[in-house]
């Protein structure tokens, strides 16, 4: 796999401070020239053995660096499996990766570069919803299929949906639907929203608010937390002053780790119920027992008692022996599943033509056995979001082995957690309005 790296935004800010930005632009961030194509029809038809290039648009720095690394390993595993079988349509698969830096502008630039310079056939990967949205706009403009593997803002399969984009993770509305009714009954009616101040946080809070109010609860306040916050004391003091029964947190990535540690330091988990809409495995792996408080959602767990799970975990450990996270989690799983189903779809379509592959993906149905989940999953053709089992979990105080840190409380079938708002919010472009792309 070829790999390209960029300077991170913090450094560029620093250089600006010291009036060196002009010099370092030359060293680190020369903007490539793209375009000015108005139409993005098929590239020259490919030779039979020309590799199919998959552009991995994943974060290696910023708030979601840890998750970006894990979804990359998942995608690489699927690519490896197909290459071991001889590739797809007789063509080997090649992956390229450029750090999207958890920054929408970088995501956009990386996507442009991968398509125009590297001739990427498909784009795979995103955790930050702003980055996913930016990449998907480029992808739609070019007609390139983009798999949003792990970003879960409801808008991704709602207002910001695209014909070329497919969303593989559960979203904030799915997770909220799975948890809120029960939480109001058990913990209380007065809720405070603790919200990461960007698109995923806002959209998830909006979905949570609607569901809380629909189920007889009350939102008594909302505290917005900027991205890359490390010190949560001000926010946690404000939350306490509102005297909630429940705090619904939509805080992601490294921010969430910091929040968990500081909630524990002040013992705020003992007198307030905490719900974290979705818990990504890299954000919780390695935390102490007490820090994994509250109830949270996920789409997969490495100790689900289902066929294929043990083998899946064993293969991860065999192929990636040096990775600090010793067992795969939901982020790796989504990266793997999305890439595997994309390559299956190409094989089924018998071509890399984007429209043909899109039509296969729109009709995708995956059995529970193949998904290693409790219920069958399917791609919603109206929103392009994978409809799948949602698991509610909490910390496991009786682990069967090391890293057995989740207790799965329930497995909710996709029909019960469907994001109904997305069905009307999503307006997919027509096939005719989507540029043809056949790398």
């Amino acid at each position, binding site marked *: 796999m070829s790999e390209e790296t960029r300077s991170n935004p913090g450094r560029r800010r*620093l250089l600006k401070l010291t009036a060196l930005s002009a010099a370092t632009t030359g060293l680190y961030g020369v903007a490539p020239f793209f375009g000015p194509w108005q139409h993005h029809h098929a590239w020259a038809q490919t030779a039979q053995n020309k590799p199919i290039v998959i552009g991995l648009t994943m974060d290696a720095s910023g708030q979601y660096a840890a998750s970006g690394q894990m979804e990359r390993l998942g995608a690489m595993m699927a690519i490896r499996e197909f290459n071991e079988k001889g590739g797809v349509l007789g063509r080997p698969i090649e992956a390229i990766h450029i750090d999207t830096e958890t920054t929408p502008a970088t995501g956009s630039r990386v996507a442009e570069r991968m398509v125009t310079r590297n001739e990427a056939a498909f784009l795979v990967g995103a955790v930050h919803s702003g980055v996913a949205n930016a990449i998907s706009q480029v992808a739609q403009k070019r007609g390139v299929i983009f798999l949003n593997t792990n970003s879960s803002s409801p808008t991704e399969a709602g207002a910001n949906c695209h014909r070329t984009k497919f969303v593989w993770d559960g979203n904030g509305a799915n997770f909220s639907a799975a948890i809120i009714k029960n939480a109001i009954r058990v913990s209380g009616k007065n809720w405070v929203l603790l919200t990461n101040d960007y698109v995923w946080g806002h959209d998830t809070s909006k979905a949570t608010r609607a569901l809380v109010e629909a189920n007889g609860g009350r939102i008594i306040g909302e505290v917005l937390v900027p991205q890359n916050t490390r010190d949560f004391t001000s926010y946690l003091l404000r939350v306490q*002053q509102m005297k909630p029964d429940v705090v619904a947190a939509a805080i992601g990535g490294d921010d969430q780790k910091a929040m968990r540690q500081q909630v524990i330091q002040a013992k705020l988990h003992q007198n307030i119920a905490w719900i974290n809409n979705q818990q990504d495995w890299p954000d919780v792996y390695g935390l102490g027992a007490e820090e994994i408080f509250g109830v949270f959602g996920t789409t997969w767990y490495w100790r689900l008692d289902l066929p294929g799970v043990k083998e899946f975990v064993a293969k991860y450990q065999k192929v990636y022996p040096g990775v600090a996270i010793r067992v795969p989690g939901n982020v790796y799983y989504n990266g793997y599943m999305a890439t595997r189903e994309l390559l299956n779809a190409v094989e089924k379509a018998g071509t890399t033509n984007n429209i043909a592959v899109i039509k296969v993906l729109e009709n995708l149905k995956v059995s529970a056995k193949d998904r290693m989940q409790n219920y069958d999953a399917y791609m919603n053709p109206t929103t392009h979001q994978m409809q799948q089992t949602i698991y509610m979990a909490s910390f496991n105080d009786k682990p069967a082995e090391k890293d057995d840190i989740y207790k799965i409380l329930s497995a909710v079938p996709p029909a019960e957690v469907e994001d109904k708002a997305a069905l009307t919010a999503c307006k997919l472009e027509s096939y005719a309005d989507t540029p043809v792309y056949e790398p």
Partner: protein
Amino acid sequence: MFSTLAPHLVNGLALGLLFALLALGFMLIIGLMETINLAHGSFFALGAYVALTMAAPPLAPEALGGYAGWPIAVRYALALIVAPVVVGVSGMVLELALRRTYGKDPLYGLLLTFGAALVIEEAIRLTWGSQERVLPLPPMLQGPVPFGDVFFAKYRFYAAGAAALAIVLLWLLIERTSIGARIKAGAYDSELVRALGINLPRLRLLVFALGIALAAFAGIVMAPIWGIRPQVGVDAVVPAFLIIVLGGVGSFWGAVLAGLLVGIVVGLTGAFAGDWAIVSMYILFIAVVTFRARGLFGRKSVLDV
């Protein structure tokens, strides 16, 4: 109204002391040596990692006389003292490299320290990995402290106390010791100091190491609040730089007051307009330098203490 505001003011003051601690080593090196040390944040991170290794050593229980089995309070206390010394000594290497840039265009020093920051960050990544790490704390520093109808983390007051202690000790060193007198003299007139037989290169080496050790100490104190990861230094160096300029480059009390001011502003905006919390320090900075370009107490060097 006051009961609502009070915890946030207390939090802002504590935060301000931590910001001042963050800027202390940076201020010392700029004040005496007129070198902007862009590797300050990387040494901040390195301090946290060295302390982590000492507090939670990856050792077999019987190794090093059973060190891993010693009480966490002892290992933490050792880390708090030894890690800044270790990092301070490693900082001497950078000062030795910097000597070739003295008297030249400041860009040379700037680029050298920027390069050092990249090298240190990557070395951290290679040695400790990219995963977020947690510094274990003695039980006595954990738990809540009630304040009116809310709870603070006990650690916050400990951290603010450690910052205040570091500020006072540094002030005493500069103002009340012969070494401090030589440091100030060196900053004021290096040629005269050299003519008096004082070994100026050694003095500079000492000051640089002290500045780096302070960065490492700040990294250890901040670790339970900010977490430990290779790029945490970037989070540290930007506010440190901002506070130095806001307070007035080279001014000891300017840095302390600017730290407190930034802490209170960030603390209050965090509570009542959370989405503005991070940007508020930059707005404050712009507001001040627009009307007073040299900062609140802008003078030339630590002589102005």
